[in-house]
């Protein structure tokens, strides 16, 4: 029975249901159980994001607080995964991932390959990304393109509460390392979510709006920005098809290509910096495999190639908004040789 719950609650429910189903699932991270200033076992924080709240008492001994040492506890989670557990590690901000890159891209991502398929690494690293919370340059980046670049990692970015639950369950059941991106601005978003457990397959994009004039490919928080733009454009008679990639690795190429073959026009909307991001990746895909279908040059909407500003006025301008998407769509629909 579906009821409306928040993105945060959907993630919590996914963790609880998987921990209930499979006792090898554990949760670990900074302040996941208690946290600084709390008496520890009181479960005061549930992580800085509040996602793991309540799990400590439901699953004694399986929700672990870690020191503020990302390289240590991400390494521990990856090691535990190779030894038979299914750890879900919470790395507060993706911006801090840098100190654990060896564990992630040189170890976890390589084990299955280098051990001839005999080793699996079923670890999930949940992390928060994106701008908009006045958290400045070191706590606001997107960085999912970095992980999408690395073979052996799966990269997931749910945009809705329904997807958040189903994709996190799939991430936990998956035998490969998964980097699970949660946008700060989405935690309070509500939507219908079944009470029952369910897994959404990776590599399946979601067509969140159908339309025949322009294809908008997007992901994460930008799905909602793109939908606002599509709604405004529809009032002017331009019908956009909005595709939420849901996972960047694996990537659902077919859904993107089939849509562009129908519309002949592509706008890619990505909150990450504009160089080597998902927008450039999708643009290259379409330029190579659907060139004949294109009736206008591809447009990309992305953040600027600068750090995320701390100034609230500048940060607001920095984040791609619906107006920029509308303008990009008008560029591709108005283009002529």
């Amino acid at each position, binding site marked *: *029975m579906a009821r409306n719950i928040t993105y945060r609650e959907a993630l919590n429910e996914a963790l609880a249901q998987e921990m209930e189903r499979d006792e090898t699932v554990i949760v670990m991270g900074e302040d996941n159980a208690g946290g600084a200033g709390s008496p520890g076992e009181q479960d005061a924080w549930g992580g800085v994001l509040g996602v793991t709240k309540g799990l400590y008492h439901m699953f004694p001994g399986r929700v672990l607080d870690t020191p503020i040492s990302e390289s240590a506890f991400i390494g521990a989670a990856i090691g535990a995964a190779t030894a038979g557990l299914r750890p879900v590690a919470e790395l507060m901000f993706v911006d801090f991932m840098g100190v654990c890159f060896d564990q992630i891209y040189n170890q976890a991502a390589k084990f299955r390959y280098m051990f001839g398929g005999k080793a699996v690494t079923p670890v999930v690293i949940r992390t928060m990304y994106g701008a908009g919370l006045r958290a400045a340059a070191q706590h606001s980046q997107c960085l999912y393109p970095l992980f999408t670049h690395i073979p052996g990692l799966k990269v997931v970015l749910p945009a809705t509460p329904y997807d958040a639950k189903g994709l996190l369950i799939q991430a936990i059941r998956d035998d490969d390392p998964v980097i699970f991106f949660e946008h700060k601005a989405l935690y309070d978003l509500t939507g219908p979510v079944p009470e*029952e457990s369910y897994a959404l397959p990776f590599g399946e994009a979601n067509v969140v709006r159908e339309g025949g004039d322009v294809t908008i490919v997007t992901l994460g928080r930008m799905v909602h920005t793109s939908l606002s733009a599509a709604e405004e454009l529809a009032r002017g008679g331009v019908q956009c098809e909005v595709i939420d990639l849901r996972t960047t690795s694996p990537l659902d190429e077919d859904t993107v290509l089939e849509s562009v073959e129908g519309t002949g026009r592509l706008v890619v909307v990505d909150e990450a910096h504009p160089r080597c991001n998902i927008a450039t990746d999708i643009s290259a895909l379409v330029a190579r495999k659907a060139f004949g279908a294109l009736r206008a040059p591809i447009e990309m909407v992305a953040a600027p190639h600068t750090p995320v500003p701390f100034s609230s006025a500048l940060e607001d301008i920095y984040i791609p908004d619906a107006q920029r998407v509308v303008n990009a769509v008008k560029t591709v629909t108005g283009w002529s040789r």
Partner: protein
Amino acid sequence: MTDDRIVPVTMPKWGLSMQLGKVTSWIVAEGDEVGVGDELADIETEKITGTLEAADAGTVRRIVAGVGEDVPVSGTIALIAPAEVGDDALDDAVAQARAVIDAGVPDDADGVAEVQTADVGGRKISYAGAGTDGDVILLVHGYGGDRNSWLFLQEPLAAKYQVYALDLPGHGTSAKDVGDGTLGVLAEAVTGVLDALGAARAHLVGHSLGGAVALAVAAGDPGRIASLTLIAPAGFGADINVGYLRGFADAATRRELKPVLSQLFADESLVTRQLVDDLLAYKRLDGVDAALHALLDTLLDGDAQRADSAAPLAAIGDAVPVTVVWGGADRVIPAAQAEAVAGAVRHVIDGAGHMPHMERPSEVQAAIEETIARAG
């Protein structure tokens, strides 16, 4: 006072949770003559797109609701009236209707219909009801369906009856465990819901697999079942579209599922993205895959039907009035099998597929009401 010669065309309630709908296109224009059953407008809800048929004959004098405008359920969207009714009276009626539309959904409107649950043999069975008076009708969906399959029928029937629809084990929001998956397990769920309702007697309407289930229930306790309306029931011949059944059970993606679903309907445009997405979301719930495959063994023996509905039908004898409704263009179970339903009143609906209760609900409603009338 509104002139009582003015007959309103109202926004229908398709599904117990529907509060708003919008006209996506008007098929008729002001001045058109319409007969009962004529198509008036295409209507879209959060869940489904359908065509509204005229419940009354006459001249469409005014169209009230614009295309794309949200209208609360039962709000007036057009007016039918004879030529003698003057413009002033019509303008008054339009103004009243506009006020209702502009007010939106009233705060005290029924929310999402209360879903009830019964514990039947350790399984949670979900069901939902509409209507407060009259005989009890229980609607039993088919393979892979759920209680929402009846969205075009449940509310209209509720004007005269207490109409319940359940989710069989393995379906909807009921428990996904189907045990050995036999008809007996499914029939037990139906009986369990009747018990929970305190219904000593009820009319059963069963579609496809649900038809075979309804027959099993009736054969087990004929005195409890007042009438049976079977829509494209399973078990009256060997032929069945195994490609459809296995395809439905095995489909894991939208691309795999959509062509399978198109075989359900005569009009394939009824297979909307929303329908495919809803079914995919259901199929991805834990336990559903196992349930659907277990039930496949109940439906199929090799490439033929396993269920034998003739035996329970014979066991019931003449005690219970039976009607069979079939879509003439059914591509899942051939309509010719209607001939094998001994002693039944038969309705074959030309141009409908395996889902006549969604494709031609008013004709199915008439068949159900006629069957109930025969029960006396």
